């Protein structure tokens, strides 16, 4: 197909979308699961279907003109098959069900991989299902009893919630003579974290102990002594403490407490909002990687101090949503 034709087609559909939103039925944000049905499936002859029609017209005209009933019979048979196949094309989408949409959060500038999970609500196997997301095409078969995934990358251009555009589901099964399609626009969305600053600014210096609040690492008697257990080395027995309590106690190796730091929004000076968030994001990642305990201070909220996976996610989520309209 020539580029001009492609452009013309794109322009045409753009017009249709704009003026006849009901036709393309780009439902806004539906709840899952979404089962396709006759109210939202559209079907037209495909390009190949039109070629087929022209060819069959020629065959039938010739057969009738020359009164050749054999040729007529074998012109009418493909016509009948084509007509019935239209219904099958429709049925191939009907009751196809989008059960789940899933995407992991990403950083701004990356692509979020949205997984659309399909199954057949009525248990029939579907062949040749095509999903089109913008210019990305993905093809799947959905066999009975199976849930199949259709992954499309969605570029994350701004932090905050990212909702994918409508996904077009189409099929030409079984013979390619008809093209049936439907649009799916689910509530699915994912969070886009701010883009981590690069190159990274160094982490803020570790503040004095106590400034952070929280645990005082002080005397850790309780942690460093435990009951004697079979297999413990006698050298590890804390005899003094044992004498005091009357039970054998064992010294445990000292556990180093994690260092702590504060990632403070207000302490960053001279950058605009997005770049501040960008830097904070980088710091959260760095602090997490180096095993620091950290507290994220944003105007109006303080998160932590803490460490670990969950804490990191809480911080990133707060950064992603910070000062967003409508969040």
């Amino acid at each position: 197909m020539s580029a001009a034709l492609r452009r013309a087609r794109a322009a045409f559909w753009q017009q249709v979308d704009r003026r006849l939103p009901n036709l393309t039925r780009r439902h806004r944000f539906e709840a899952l699961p979404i089962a396709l049905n006759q109210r939202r499936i559209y079907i037209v002859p495909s390009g190949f279907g039109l070629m087929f029609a022209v060819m069959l017209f020629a065959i039938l005209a010739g057969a009738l003109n020359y009164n050749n009933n054999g040729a007529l019979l074998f012109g009418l048979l493909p016509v009948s098959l084509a007509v019935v196949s239209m219904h099958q094309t429709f049925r191939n989408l009907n009751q196809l069900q989008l059960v789940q949409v899933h995407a992991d959060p990403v950083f701004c500038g990356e692509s979020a991989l949205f997984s659309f999970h399909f199954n057949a609500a009525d248990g029939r196997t579907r062949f040749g299902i095509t999903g089109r997301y913008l210019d990305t095409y993905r093809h799947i078969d959905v066999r009975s009893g199976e849930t199949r995934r259709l992954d499309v990358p969605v570029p994350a251009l701004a932090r905050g919630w990212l909702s994918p555009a409508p996904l077009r589901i189409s099929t030409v099964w079984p013979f390619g003579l008809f093209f049936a399609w439907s649009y799916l626009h689910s509530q699915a969305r994912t969070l886009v974290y701010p883009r981590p600053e690069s190159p990274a600014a160094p982490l803020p210096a570790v503040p004095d102990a106590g400034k952070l609040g929280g645990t005082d690492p002080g005397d850790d008697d309780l942690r460093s002594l435990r009951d004697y257990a079979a297999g413990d080395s006698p050298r590890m027995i804390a005899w003094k403490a044992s004498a005091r309590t009357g039970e054998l106690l064992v010294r445990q190796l000292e556990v180093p407490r994690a260092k702590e730091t504060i990632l403070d929004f207000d302490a960053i000076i001279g950058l605009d909002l997005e770049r501040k968030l960008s830097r904070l994001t980088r710091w959260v990642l760095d602090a997490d990687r180096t095993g620091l305990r950290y507290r994220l201070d944003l105007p109006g909220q303080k998160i932590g101090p803490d460490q670990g996976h969950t804490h990191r996610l809480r911080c990133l989520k707060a950064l992603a949503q910070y000062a967003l309209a409508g969040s």
Partner: protein
Amino acid sequence: MSAADDLKPLLAARDQINEILVGKLAEVHLSLVSVLAGGHLLLEDLPGVGKTTLAHALAASLDLGFGRVQFTSDLLPADLVGVSVFDPNARRFDFHSGPIFTQLLLADEINRGTPKLQSALLEAMAEGQVTVDGVSHTLPKPFIVIATQNPIEQSGTFALPESQLDRFLLSMSLGYPDATAEKMLLGARERRQAIAELKPKLSAEQLMALRGKAENLHASAAAIEYAYALISSTRSDKRVRIGLSPRAGIGLLRAAKAHALLAARTHVLPEDLQAVFVAVARHRLVLAADASGDGASISRDLLAHVPIP
């Protein structure tokens, strides 16, 4: 309602443990589920977060005999299960039982033990008996193992093989107490002393009866279907190299039944399956090489995405 009455002592035990182990409601609950389901528990934590306390408190509250073994690379299987010693007076061999002959065994840092030692423990866990010099010795009932495993890569550890991890019904991580709980903890009396003051809330017989009840709890076809959907989701996920085994599926249902019993229900709800799924799955999933996240986060993700049939 007699079911609720039967449960009362168990719930009392739970409350008692919660007083000692502040801020770990969910974890304490899960450990009781494990005990009730007749499974063994794997704790994956750094030292010093209260694993011992939990085990101790459980044993004291449920009136179970308590034993503890610190796994090291020089510990021999005989040190664990016991040894036959020749008694010159009686002119016969006497079996001197090892620390494993107890009702609740805390196996500390199980991944520091040699594979031989690990398999001796796991055999005992699976069969409820130990065999020394060709003679089988039955372990007391109930027999519960709470094993701890240090998650940080360290030299001198022997990672448990995947097939062995399957023997643990549930696994969890206690994690650091949150700030308020930790402060409370520091202000409280010494934990060791508190444990000593714990009173048994129910007998071993009562516990065994409750176990029987949990096992016979009703799981409808719908619940089983959901359990199957969860199990099979781990098998088709690309982040997972090896999904959950059929044994894990049985364990999931067993744990869900115990969870339902603890909630004073007569049947399993999807919520019960959801409550135990992560604990059942996290240590069993073998992740793909390029998978991001760990077993727990992937299990949580699957849980959020598998629709309830």
